């Protein structure tokens, strides 16, 4: 009977992914304080280890420099984006920097329980206005999107997860494609880029705004390899995401769901 129940759950989940019942809600409610406390404890222990037992000054300087690099990279992305847009005389472009969007900061309190998926658990949920399918970002770039929301916590699927797909484009050439996760950290596959399009290593990849989830112009990563086989319509492009997913502690949820889509049309 239990096996049949399990099969029933599998069947209903495949038909209606993302749904959350009262049992799941209750579990999230029970585990959230535990996860928050453990996460804070481990974070504290790690900070102690990194900060006090290591070289305190170097660590601080390193963090400040890293933050500065992220800031400058974001500025550079915006600069490139504006320049390219101006060159094409697109007067109606109203690209805004991520900071101008309505955002909600959230703390990462856990991650996927199995180890086979790239999913994070954050401490904001329905009670804070979070809904399924909202983009999650950090200053360095795109993190992923919310896939399930409980009252006070949510599940975020990272762009590196095998089930993730993001409509993106190469910033330099405007070649479009779909960025899919490969199930491993630090690499995504850029699919459906026509072999006639010009793509080079080091090209910056940004969101196209056409997928219905992410606003246009958010930095996703950089092209690390390009290969064209002797046949086929598309080229194989590998992209390294800009975000260090192992080090994520705080993220931002972009709350303007419909507005983003509307703005980019």
């Amino acid at each position, binding site marked *: 009977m*239990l*096996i049949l*129940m*399990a*099969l*029933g*759950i*599998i*069947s*209903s*989940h*495949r038909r209606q992914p993302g749904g959350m019942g009262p*049992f*799941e809600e209750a*579990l*999230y409610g*029970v*585990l959230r304080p*535990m*996860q928050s406390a*453990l*996460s804070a404890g*481990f*974070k504290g*222990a*790690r900070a102690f280890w990194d900060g006090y037992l290591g070289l305190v000054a170097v660590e601080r300087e390193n963090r400040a420099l890293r933050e500065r690099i992220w800031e400058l990279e974001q500025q550079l992305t915006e600069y490139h984006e504006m320049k390219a847009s101006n060159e094409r005389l697109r007067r109606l472009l109203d690209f805004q920097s991520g900071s101008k969007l309505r955002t909600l900061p959230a703390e990462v*309190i*856990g*991650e*996927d*329980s*199995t*180890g*086979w*998926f*790239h*999913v994070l*658990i954050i401490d904001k949920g329905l009670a804070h206005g979070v809904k399924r399918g909202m983009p999650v970002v950090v200053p360095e770039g795109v993190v992923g999107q919310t*896939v399930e929301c409980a009252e006070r916590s949510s*599940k975020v*699927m990272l762009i590196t*997860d*095998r*089930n993730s797909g993001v409509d993106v484009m190469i910033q330099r050439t405007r070649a479009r494609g779909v960025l899919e996760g*490969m*199930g*491993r*950290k630090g690499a995504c596959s850029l699919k459906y880029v026509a072999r006639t399009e010009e793509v080079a290593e080091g090209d910056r990849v940004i969101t196209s705004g056409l997928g219905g989830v992410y606003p246009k112009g958010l930095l996703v990563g950089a092209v690390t390899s390009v290969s064209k086989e002797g046949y086929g319509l598309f080229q194989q492009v590998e992209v390294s995401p800009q975000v260090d997913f*192992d080090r994520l502690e705080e993220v931002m949820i972009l709350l303007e769901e419909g507005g983003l889509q509307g703005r980019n049309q």
Partner: protein
Amino acid sequence: MRKASGMNAVALFCLGLVMIALQTTLFRALAIPYAKAALILPLVIYAAFRMEAVRGLILSFALGYAMDVFSGGIQGLTPLFTVLLCLGGHWLRKGVFVDGVLAQVLVGFWFGATYGVLWVGAETLAEGWGWGQWGPLPRILLQSLVVGLLSPALIRIAGPVDRLSGKGWRRLQGLRG
């Protein structure tokens, strides 16, 4: 095998929730996501080898389902696997004793490996994962090793939780009566 009240299973389920909370935070903090083992498996071993069949199976199902809630995969797969593992353990316990540390390590490793193979196999069928594409076998081995090494300690913790919760519940019933 001990005669148990339903409270034993509830207490062990709560212990399982603590394991899930640990699982979703500890490995991330240690920056070793590939070693993220299913810490509920030693409790499934306990349920299979030390509990009555029905209670053990229900506990395994509940633990699997709770773990699924915090995973990014297809809901329902983990309870299916934990129930199958518990059934397998039940069948094995006629001839295998898990009293010694070495036996617990070996059974933990076996449960971990079977669980990993079932997971990746099912996702391969359902979502088209590839066995060769991202090398899940080394990860399965590493995770199984972690489950094996942690099994003796976790089974040892589960024992007193099982006994004390049953004893406490019976005492409470006695006070009421």
